[in-house]
């Protein structure tokens, strides 16, 4: 009887849970200290599909059909990447160029992504105070990611604040990776169980501030 219950529970939880697609882009994974652990964490969650874009398309020959189907099959789309020149690594740009076709993602009949949730999860080498209008980088991370915000808007997706880790080059030495990983787990759980406060998530500067580090 417990068996039947667990199966029923499982079916129920799958029905109610949101499906999350993590598109991970890191061109130098042997040297990654933050993103690879987060990617592995995402792989452990059964409601999350974690895709390593550089592994699947090492020659950038992206399978458009397959990527579009993946988008259709999921409710939440996450770009997971280290910030390179204030933007994504090049394969994510390539992915946008190829996959978000006219007539699919935008344009007259392009409504395939309507009402899906979109967010960025990124690590930035600079410190948090550098990403301020009066700081070294002159713009906040939210401002720098505006092209992606507009991409989400024109494809009819809901855009929320990025989940960011600043000072990532020293995060390992300062033992901040573990805490960040916990917050990431919390975020993924909140997304799959649909318990994230979306209004708040749109307003804050960094989603990480909304998640506790215990991985609940």
């Amino acid at each position, binding site marked *: 009887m417990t068996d039947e219950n667990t199966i029923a529970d499982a079916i129920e939880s799958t029905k109610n849970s949101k499906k999350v697609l993590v598109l991970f882009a890191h061109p130098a994974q042997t040297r990654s200290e933050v993103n690879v652990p987060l990617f592995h964490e995402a792989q452990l969650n059964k409601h999350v599909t974690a895709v390593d874009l550089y592994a699947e398309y090492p020659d950038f020959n992206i399978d*458009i059909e397959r990527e579009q189907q993946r988008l259709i099959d999921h409710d939440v789309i996450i770009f997971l990447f280290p910030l390179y020149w204030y933007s994504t690594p090049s394969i994510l740009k390539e992915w946008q160029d190829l996959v978000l076709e006219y007539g699919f993602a935008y*344009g007259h009949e392009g409504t395939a992504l309507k009402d899906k949730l979109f967010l960025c999860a990124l690590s930035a080498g600079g410190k948090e105070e550098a990403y301020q209008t009066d700081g070294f980088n002159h713009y906040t991370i939210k401002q720098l990611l505006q092209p992606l915000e507009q991409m989400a808007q024109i494809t009819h997706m809901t855009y929320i604040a990025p989940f960011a880790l600043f000072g990532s080059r020293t995060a390992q030495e300062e033992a901040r990776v573990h805490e960040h990983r916990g917050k990431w787990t919390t975020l993924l759980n909140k997304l799959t169980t649909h318990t994230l406060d979306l209004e708040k998530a749109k307003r804050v500067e960094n989603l990480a501030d909304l998640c506790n580090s215990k991985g609940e």
Partner: protein
Amino acid sequence: MTGYFLYAFIYLVAAVIAVPIAKRLGLGSVLGYLIAGLVIGPIFGLVGDETVAIQHFAEFGVVMMLFLVGLELEPRSLWAMKSKLIGLGGLQLGLTTALITGAAIGLNQPFGISLTIGLIFALSSTAIVLQTLQEKGLQKTEGGKSAFSVLLFQDIAVIPMLAFIPLLAIPELIAAGSTQGGDTGSHDNFNLVEGLAPWASGLVIIGSVALLTVGAHYLSRPLFKYVAASGLREIFTATALMLIIGIAALMGLVGLSPALGAFLAGVILANSEFRHELEANIEPFKGLLLGLFFITVGAGINFSVLSENPMLIAGLTVAVMVVKAFVLFVIALIFKIKGTNKWLFTLSLAQAGEFGFVLLSFASQNYVLPSDIISVLSLVVAISMFLTPGLFILFDKAIIPRYKNATSQRADDEIDEKGTVVIAGIGRFGQIINRLLVANDVNTVVLDIRSEQIDLIRRIGTKAYFGDASKPDILHTAGAHESALLVIAIDDRETAAEMVKYAKHAYPNVKVLARAFDRGHGYRLRQLGADYVVSETYHSALEMGAEALRSLNIHPFLVERQKMAYKNIESQQNDVLYHAWADDASGERVDNNYLKLFIELESLIENALKADLHDKHSRMRGWTPPPKGYADKLAPDEKPVEKTN
């Protein structure tokens, strides 16, 4: 003559029946041989006194085994073992000898006899332990390596023991012996150093070891090359046998251990390109002779002596094994050998060994031990060897499970270790593969049948070996069973196909990457189970075609895209074509359906590439701008802001 055939038949039948059963029951082949011997010897009495003579002959298997062990050890790694060899081995031998000697004195034996017994029981069985470690794949573990160090030290120590034991001779026994007028003196009629003065015999011994070293190092290579060039496989086998028997004879002549000489020769040849071919040739002889040796140990168990004083013999056997295990355990603690390795080390060496028999008969010839003690001790040696497979089973069933949880947590650490790659064929194709792998710190084992090619490759610093990779035994000795990948890049269609078939059959877990000559050959390799097949000309031809387009001033990036499109369609249609090819069972492998599909593929590629070129929405999508005037159709709030010119 018929009598010999009859005996040989009995031995072989016993082995053929008992060993597979023992193996299937998880007892290991050694116990199978021992039981076979027990059945044909003491139980049914099918074989008799000739077992002792056969045993001397079969001990040659131990010589071959040490040669093979030597082949696996390069001089450098042997040198790296030196502290372990002397530390572990010396301590084991010293402590065990001391304890057993003490115990024998406690049992009212005179000192000379006690010391001899101590020395005999300090030795362990190289034959059983190495064979079992190999069979269970434990020889590379910390415990296996430590056990090997001790065994090697013991094998070396046998030489001074043989010199030392005659000094312990008992005067009364000598007197009794000479009145009987039995064959006194040496056990061996051929001995160069016997009549010589100590300094002269020392010189002869050093000279012959030098001869062996220099000969193996400098003369063997031209010899093997000459023989390999003849292309006659059996002559190569004969050469390998000649080498080992020659060494054994030379060592015998100067009174050294043949096993040690063979080991030395093996170490010297470990760097040679002929290593794997040698291994493959000697391996079957070694296996059979060792098996024979184990059978004779089983057959030699004397039930009448056993039934006269069963308690004494059982007690002695248990006592010897407990003392040996205790010493090993203490040494493992001293040398910080941890976890399962500690137990492997303790249990694997807790028996007496075949050199024990040698020393016993030697002690008897030199009037060191009285015959009643010898018959009892022989039984203790034999039974302790008999019980060794049981200790390995204990290790498997009781020790490993206890540590399983502990080790699974540490499994993460070992993920980084990449497996080795066996590359068959190091011609123009294999070389590039090898270079790429080696540059990425992947261990490769390269095999080729052309010895001049191997010579060339070795000169530029690649580890390459002479050997016919299509021969199963060569593949095995090259380590195909332990490798992660097998790359087949040999220059012969048929052999390549046979290799794929054999490799997938013998090593289903090893991934096979095969080079094909053309489409048909590629399909054949795929059908035989190759995991990845590529035609040798495909990628280079595609590159050349791309260069041709670029030379015609077509934009390089468009050329790159066209190449991708070609590859995509090719790989999609390849499956369809393959199935059409496979469905047709006719010999030519090209029927109408296949041809039709092939033509279809050609036109598909053509259409796809053309469509892209002419800005149509083709199968190859990507970087396609939205249609002209699309911005007007966008909803007002999404309308892009018009540029003000």
